[in-house]
């Protein structure tokens, strides 16, 4: 076992996993975290804790992750290269490990110009691929980057993100291959709406045998409204939402759009589950945590197995 986390054990057993996501509060309100955690508990196998997502200041992913452990859930701590140099990253990783955090996601991070402190100086001392390599070196060689020995245990299940919908498309699979080469254990993809393009991507992944070297969790996000669909298509990099999906939401009629969005996401989960190389799904239902139970149940993924 690389980390002994629930997520790792389930994936090793070949269970079809489901991970969730929780955005920490823009302040110190622990109750917000507990409330969201309560809605996710028992419905997902691990929960991504975002790290100042979209460059907006929030409670740290380390602290929020620990609160989640206390609530009886397993966190996947996200870490971005934007805000920390290699010293701070390794130091925070020691701290995270000491607090019982066993899954992490290595990310570049959204540029600070998107957030609430666009005046800030970014760091980007190392990038997300180098971060994967760093964590793997810490875990497998028991050393920090400079070669110094780590005192005590260091265990971590190493994840990263992949955006099959960003450009240039033909290069995306090679970027995933670089992450695998750097030492990745699992990947979560950007949310999928364009299934045709995702299947093309997965064909390349399977042809290169990458699915045998890392676990691939397909990202899904339920569409709450037609407005949200249009907003995401226009503002989130690489997201293209097929027009027939938007038409289907519209056709559901007033008051029924959200339910239709849930039906669509459940159908997507079934379709993804049947795809070669997919080990699970990553359900990003940000600010929609109260609907997660319903989605997971409708997708036929309850009860969740124990690792």
């Amino acid at each position, binding site marked *: 076992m690389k980390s002994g986390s629930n997520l790792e054990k389930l994936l090793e057993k070949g269970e079809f996993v489901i991970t969730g996501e929780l955005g920490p509060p823009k302040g110190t309100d622990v109750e917000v975290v507990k409330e969201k955690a309560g809605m996710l508990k028992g419905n997902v196998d691990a929960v991504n804790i975002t790290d100042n997502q979209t460059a907006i200041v929030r409670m740290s992913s380390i602290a929020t992750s620990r609160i989640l452990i206390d609530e009886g859930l397993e966190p996947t701590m996200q870490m971005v*290269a*934007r805000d920390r140099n*290699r010293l701070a990253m390794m130091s925070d990783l020691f701290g995270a490990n000491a607090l019982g955090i066993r899954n992490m996601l290595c990310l*570049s*991070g*959204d*540029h600070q*110009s*998107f957030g609430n402190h666009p005046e800030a100086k*970014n760091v*980007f*001392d*190392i*990038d*997300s*691929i*180098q971060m994967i*390599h*760093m964590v793997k070196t810490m875990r497998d060689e028991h050393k920090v*980057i400079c070669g110094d020995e780590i005192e005590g245990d260091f265990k971590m299940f190493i994840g990263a*993100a*992949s*955006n099959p919908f*960003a*450009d*240039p498309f033909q*290069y995306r699979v*090679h*970027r995933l*291959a*670089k992450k695998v*080469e*750097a030492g990745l254990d699992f990947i979560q993809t*950007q949310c999928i709406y364009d299934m045709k393009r995702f299947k093309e991507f997965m064909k390349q992944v399977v042809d290169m045998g990458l699915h045998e070297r890392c676990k691939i969790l397909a990202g899904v996000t339920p569409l709450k409204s037609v407005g949200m669909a249009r907003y995401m298509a226009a503002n989130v*990099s*690489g997201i293209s939402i097929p027009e027939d999906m938007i038409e289907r939401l519209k056709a559901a009629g007033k008051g029924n759009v959200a339910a239709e969005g849930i039906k669509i996401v459940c159908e997507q989960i079934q379709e993804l589950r049947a795809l070669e190389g997919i080990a699970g799904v990553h359900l990003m239902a940000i600010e929609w945590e109260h609907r997660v139970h319903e989605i997971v149940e409708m997708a036929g993924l309850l009860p969740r197995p124990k690792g």
Partner: protein
Amino acid sequence: MITADRKPFEEIKASVKDYDKIMVLGCETCVAICQAGGEKEAEILASELKLAFGNEGKKVEVNDEHVIRQCDDEFMADPSFLEKVKEADIVLSIACGVGVQHACNFFNRTITDKPIRVVPGLNTTFMGANIDVGLWEERCLGCGDCVLEKTGGICPITRCAKSLLNGPCGGSSNGKCEINADTDCAWHLIIERLEVLGELDRIKPVEMYKDWRPSHSGGPRKRVREDLRL
């Protein structure tokens, strides 16, 4: 070349308002080419200051001068020029940040009977190229360890908003950077260029951690050529 923009006029005016004899000092190299701080811009700025102070009924003497390079002693050593510097109460340098600092250092080394005050009239921006008429773009951050050989001659340290060595990130869309649609994704350009060169395999291995010591992270840098020293 080094590029710069003129500071807002009100900021410049406020920085010299307490002095009666002002010398606006242009620099005829980089900042003259990007039309921010050359002879012509020194003349214009001096006229604007005269007019603005004149309108307020303030009697101020504003002269403009220019040298070939403010970052080199030899272009500022003319005794008659140094005499004019000495007569001024303040020198408003419209060179880049290097020129402002070097002119200040040189004047105070050479003129010993009076401290010489030098203030900047420009904001120095970047090391870049003149892409088109009236358009300059940043091309080098001076990181001290050039990677252009591996990246098809396109610098990811400078031109990627995240300085990624293993890009592109997930924010690359239609060849543009996530920060705005006017900025090319450097890694998109690199991949296109390497494809043309038939060298796409060059970026398949993981590029390891960069040593930032040769960059500004290692502290202010110095270059010594012992063979050239006297």
